[in-house]
C-alpha cells in the first residue's frame, strides 16, 4: 500500500524557513498568513502500514525535533 509521512519541526522549535516564507507572502499580496512551518514529505510503498510509526521513530523523523503524521493514501 502507498503511504505518506509528513514531517515538520516540533511546535516551539524555531523554523527560520517558515519565518522567511511567512515574511515573503505579504509582498505578493497574501496578507494575514501566520504559523508557516516547513517540513518534508516521504512517500512510500509498504507491505504493512502498521510499521510506519516505528520507521518514523527510528529513521524517517528525529522525534526530538520533529513531529510526524502518517497518511495511508492507497490500500
Amino acid at each position, binding site marked *: 500500500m502507498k503511504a505518506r509521512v509528513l514531517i515538520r519541526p516540533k511546535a516551539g*522549535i*524555531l523554523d*527560520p*524557513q517558515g519565518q522567511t516564507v511567512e515574511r515573503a507572502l505579504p509582498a505578493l499580496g497574501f496578507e494575514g498568513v501566520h504559523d508557516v512551518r516547513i517540513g518534508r514529505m516521504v512517500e512510500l510503498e509498504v507491505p504493512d502500514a502498521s510499521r510506519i510509526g516505528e520507521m518514523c521513530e527510528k529513521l524517517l523523523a*528525529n522525534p*526530538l525535533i520533529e513531529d510526524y503524521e502518517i497518511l495511508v493514501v492507497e490500500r
Partner: protein
Amino acid sequence: MKFGVIRFPGSCDEVDALLACRRFADAELLWHGDRDLRGADAIVVPGGFSYGDYLRAGAIARFSPVMEAVREFALSGGPVLGICNGFQVLCEAGLLPGALLPNVGLRFVCRQVDLVVENASTPFTRVCDEGDVLSVPVKHTTGRYYAPEEALDELEADGQVLLRYAEGQNPNGSARDIAGVTNRQKNVAGLMPHPEHAVDPLTGSDSGGRLFASLVAHAEALTPA
C-alpha cells in the same frame, strides 16, 4: 597511543583530522565498512557530508558497520570525539544528547570563533583550564544546537556543556551558546567548530590542538607506567 579517524563516503575533513592527530600521536583512517577499530585508543568522527547528508545530517551514517564498533567502544568508556558532521552523527546515533538544526540565518557560516572551555575535567579538555579561550573555525549550515529546556538544564548541572561560543559570537543560534557537549559519562563529545583546522599558527591558531593533546594525555594517564 593511537587515534582512529573514521572515513564515510562524503566525509571531507578526515585527512585534516588525521594530520591533526598525527601531530600528537599515531593515527590511522578507518573505513565506514570496517567492523573493528584496529586497536585505536580514541576515535574521531570527522566533518563532511556523510552519505550526502541524505534525510538529515548524520542520519544514515549511524547505521554503518564502523558505527556499531564505535558504539561498543563508547559504551565501554572509550573516548569518541565528533566534529561538525561527526557531532551530528553522534547525536543521531543517540550517543550524545540533543540535535543540530539549520542555522538561524539559514546560511552557511564560515568564520573563526572563540570558544570558552566550560568543563576542563574531561578527556577532551584536560590540558585546558576552565575559562580558557580557544580560537577555532566553524563552517556549517546545520549547527544550531538544540535540546529541550529541561534537558539543557540537566546538561548544565551535570557539566556536560564542554564548550560555549564566546559572548556575541554564536554563529548559528545554538541554545545557550553551546558549541560542544559530552555525554553523561564524559567519554563522548561533539562540537560544531573544527579543532583539526586550528593546529598550526600558520593558519591562524593552534589552540584547537589542545583537544587532541588532551586525548593523548588522557590515554597516557590510563597506561600503567
